[in-house]
């Protein structure tokens, strides 16, 4: 790393502690980039670098503060005197089940994850969640059999596992929530009728002729059809319909 380049743009450096060792890093970097700046190379604990995949869960403390802080390393900017370590993996048992034959009932979840009832409502899971998911509330919802509420409350979960790392009841909340979302999405939520109809139409061969026709076209004709196709405007009203229904059943 050419540190001279960094000083040229007048970036200030700050001290941070990575697994107990002190490094001076530019104050504008994310934790992830600061670790790379300090010479670490990611083999695990790094994924999308966009705050979505949940691979880079980080725990840290600040000087003179008893609280534990968390964040995604790719999203959190470094602070002076930050003591940090990444948690690339936290052991968490996931129950195995045959989704096809699983009943979408609270009892199915209770049977696969009886540790659900070890929750004491301490809320450490919610406090630690880097995505601000109300983890304890979805655990509570599941205890009272409300799969829909649990699915909705846990929707932003990226499965980083920090909740499991803090749980007094030693459960892996995020696996339980994933099961709730699967049951809700796959078996409880109303099905999209228009999607089903479209699938039926495709299977019935409604578009076979149109498709065969497209396959005979040359490159230029194909480009013309593509660029001239009618698109729904980004800010269209609820009741927007295409001017032409050509090709639709």
């Amino acid at each position, binding site marked *: 790393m050419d540190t001279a380049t960094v000083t040229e743009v007048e970036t200030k450096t700050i001290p941070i502690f990575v697994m107990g060792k002190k490094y001076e890093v530019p104050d504008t970097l994310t934790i992830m980039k600061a670790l790379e700046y300090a010479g670490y190379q990611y083999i695990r604990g790094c994924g999308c670098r966009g705050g979505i995949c949940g691979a880079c869960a980080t725990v840290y403390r600040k000087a003179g503060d008893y609280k534990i802080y968390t964040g995604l390393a790719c999203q959190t900017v470094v602070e002076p005197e930050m003591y940090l370590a990444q948690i690339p993996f936290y052991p968490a048992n996931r129950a195995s089940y045959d989704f096809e034959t699983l009943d979408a009932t609270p009892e199915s979840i209770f049977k696969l994850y009886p540790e659900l009832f070890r929750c*004491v*409502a*301490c*809320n450490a899971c919610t*406090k630690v969640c880097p995505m601000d998911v109300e983890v*304890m*509330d979805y655990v*509570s919802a599941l205890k*009272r*059999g409300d799969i829909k509420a649990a699915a909705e409350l846990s929707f932003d979960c990226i499965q980083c596992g920090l909740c499991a790392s803090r749980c007094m009841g030693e459960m892996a909340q995020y696996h339980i929530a994933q099961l709730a979302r699967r049951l809700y999405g796959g078996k409880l939520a109303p099905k999209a009728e228009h999607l089903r109809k479209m699938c039926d139409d495709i299977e019935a061969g409604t578009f076979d002729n149109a498709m065969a026709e497209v396959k005979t076209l040359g490159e230029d004709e194909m480009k013309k059809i593509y660029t001239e196709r009618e698109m729904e405007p980004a800010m269209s009203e609820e009741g927007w319909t295409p001017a032409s229904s050509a090709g639709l059943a």
Partner: protein
Amino acid sequence: MKIAYYPGCTMKTRAASLELAALEALNVLGVDFTELQRWNCCGAVFSLAEDDLIHHVAPVRNLVRAQQEGCDTVVTICSQCYNTLARANLLVRGDSEKLDTINRFMDEEPDYDGGIEVIHYLTLLRDHVGWDALKSKVVRPLDGLKVAPFYGCTLLRPDEVSIDPLKEGVLEDFLRALGAEPVPFAAATECCGYYQMLAHPEEGMQRAAKVIGSANQAGADALVLSCPLCEYNLGTRQSEVVAMGEQLEPVPTLYFTQLLGIALGLEPDLYRLDLAGPAARDLLVEKNFVAAATV
């Protein structure tokens, strides 16, 4: 008085038959209440350990929720939730140091100020509606129904949270207001077998057998309950209990709120006799309190 209704987990699953009629009855009786939007398990059991504050976090957090919704009273229907919430409330109201510790632990919530009253549904009926007012709304009196009123432990013990400190017979008065006949019932305040039914089944069964036997001796048509755990031990597991005891006869079990729903003429889908045993349904049809077609 601004009342928050705290449901409890079982009310939303297996014990819907304890909840639904009770809530509609409050509308019929003109009692304003709001169901808590956000709540967690009551804690299930009040921890007796001196230094076990973590197990009081769950009940106190629910009291914070009621406080956040601008309420001053929490009412429960499940007697186990009542007991857990009321005792946790009593503990922190009487011990500012413990309250402070719990408040500091829950640093993401507003502090609990100790200002919530926790009451049971029967207390609400007795003290805020009144038996005469209840009686005046009864459209189908339960004439000739002999009921053994089962309190179990959690409505009455310990004394500090008893819903009937003067031992006036709150459940008996409730039943009389509905037109039913409470029968003298020696095991009314015995233990149903509690969680021992699962941990130590033999001892649990013996407890339950004592209650069933006492209801038999009292000549009760039905045993009336206020707790999903009592219902599990005395209702769901009753055939096993009866089979092990000598000279025990089956006795239909019903929640007190199911009788309330019937007496107030509520819709059958609110008192959910489908969740009660067949014996209870047969009894109510035979006594002509419900139409056979509705059960």
